[in-house]
């Protein structure tokens, strides 16, 4: 394992210090328990949007803290859900008196820890709601599993709900919007290489030189199916088809297409894949109205990508376009 680190057990803490120094205008960092909060939090009278999860997916979630998106992020250890005391501390830092929405990705650990936190926070008379996003279509038979995972769609949810909260939406509307995004967003990912968690020191799985892993999660957990390597045209089709079938998306639908790198895949490949996805959607009469291309929900240095589709309507499109000012997503301000 070769990484630019000092000690596997202090990676997250040191990275948070660096992040605070890098973005003094956007955010502030509390170290124990770890919380990344908007520089101007709490914003009085605004619903606070809080998310969190294991570290190693940067820029998610800390890179989305700022005006028009998250009020706080709770970074766990690498690939480990945050603890309830982090969530409690985040609420203390950013609660503006209009209630708190917790955005949780569907993993047993995240759900259990945020659930515990929500119980504790509610005891302090803070109105708190929880939404669980589960956009990964890789997980089939969800009756027999922990259910679908929350993956790249989370960024779209955080942007849209964050915009609404910034505009003054109340807790009911924020929660309803979050559920609307969850109902309309689907993702699927693949990996060409594994990643190495610092405290593990070895790759999370082995892939031969001519294999890829389809249906990968974002925690270095192997996917559902190992396949022989294929040209980009086929790889993109294997991601897109299950996503389209699942909701389903149909001709005439307006969508946001999000082409995400798992971290190690360079932009030149990502744009190439994005172009293929756009063409396949055009062939089906699906209208790509907005797009996001880049490494936004990553698994450390893993090479691979995911495709996410969100069905848009005027409400969602307007909120997507609304100004945002965070380390990783920024426009209009």
């Amino acid at each position: 394992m070769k990484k630019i680190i000092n000690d596997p057990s202090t990676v997250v803490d040191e990275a948070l210090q660096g992040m605070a120094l890098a973005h003094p205008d956007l955010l502030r960092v509390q170290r124990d328990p770890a919380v990344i909060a908007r520089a101007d939090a709490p914003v009085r009278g605004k619903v606070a949007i809080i998310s969190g999860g294991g570290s190693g997916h940067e820029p998610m979630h800390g890179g989305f803290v700022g005006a028009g998106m998250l009020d706080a992020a709770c970074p766990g250890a690498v690939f480990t859900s945050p603890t309830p005391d982090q969530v409690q501390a985040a609420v203390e830092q950013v609660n503006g008196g209009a209630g708190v929405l917790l955005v949780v990705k569907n993993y047993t650990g995240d759900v259990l820890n945020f659930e515990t936190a929500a119980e504790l926070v509610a005891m302090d008379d803070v109105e708190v709601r929880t939404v669980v996003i589960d956009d990964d279509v890789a997980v089939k038979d969800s009756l027999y599993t922990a259910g679908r995972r929350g993956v790249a769609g989370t960024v779209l949810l955080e942007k849209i709900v964050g915009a609404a909260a910034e505009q003054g939406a109340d807790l009911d509307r924020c929660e309803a919007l979050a559920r609307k995004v969850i109902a309309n967003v689907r993702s699927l990912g693949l990996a060409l290489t594994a990643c190495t968690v610092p405290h593990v020191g070895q790759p999370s799985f082995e892939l031969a030189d001519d294999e890829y892993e389809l249906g990968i999660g974002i925690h270095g957990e192997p996917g559902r199916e190992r396949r022989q390597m294929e040209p980009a045209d086929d790889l993109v089709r294997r991601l897109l088809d299950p996503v389209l079938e699942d909701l389903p998306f149909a001709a005439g639908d307006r969508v946001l297409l999000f082409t995400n790198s798992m971290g190690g895949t360079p932009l030149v490949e990502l744009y190439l894949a994005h172009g293929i996805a756009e063409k396949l959607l055009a062939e089906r009469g699906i209208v790509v109205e907005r797009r996001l291309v880049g490494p936004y929900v990553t698994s450390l240095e893993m090479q691979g990508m995911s495709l996410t589709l969100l069905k848009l309507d005027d409400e969602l499109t307007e909120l997507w376009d609304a100004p945002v000012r965070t380390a990783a997503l920024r426009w209009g301000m």
Partner: protein
Amino acid sequence: MATVVAAHRDELVDLDRMIGDGDHGENLKRGFDAVVSALDSSEVDTPANVLKLVAKTLISKVGGASGPLLGTAFLRAASGLDEVDGASVAAALRAALDGVVARGKAEVGDKTMVDALQPAVEAAEAVKDKSVAEVLAAAAAAAETGAESTIPLVARKGRASYLGERSAGHLDPGARSTSLLLRSLADSAAAS
């Protein structure tokens, strides 16, 4: 227990790497290290209060699926433990199991820590009239067999469930750590 966890950290990491995300050993190590300093820096009197402090520390420090689950287990065990005799210990273990199931909704056969904990509880109850050491020894032995039984299973809860059929053939890390914790309890009861 912290020593046992530290000694087995790498094994648990490896098990979790096979069918999960490779952090189980590190999660527990972080949690039990924090337990040791919490116990060192506070004055706890009764076994129940010790368990409560352990529970709170695990909940706030472990994270992952295992943190709230193990934390709940210790919290419930604390309420079940009035006296220190075989029957109370068996009752505490039963309370712990109920807590884990209430939170995680797993059944025996789902390839989780429940596969170790439930047989342990049943074995403890079967000998609950004996000494604490004997009750814990029975529980630990049953947990070990239970943990081994997870190897052929296909996971239906937790992160390993995403692997489907591919999760078969591997020992569940949470079941393994549960059996290790019970074995260390039994060993210290036997020694005292």
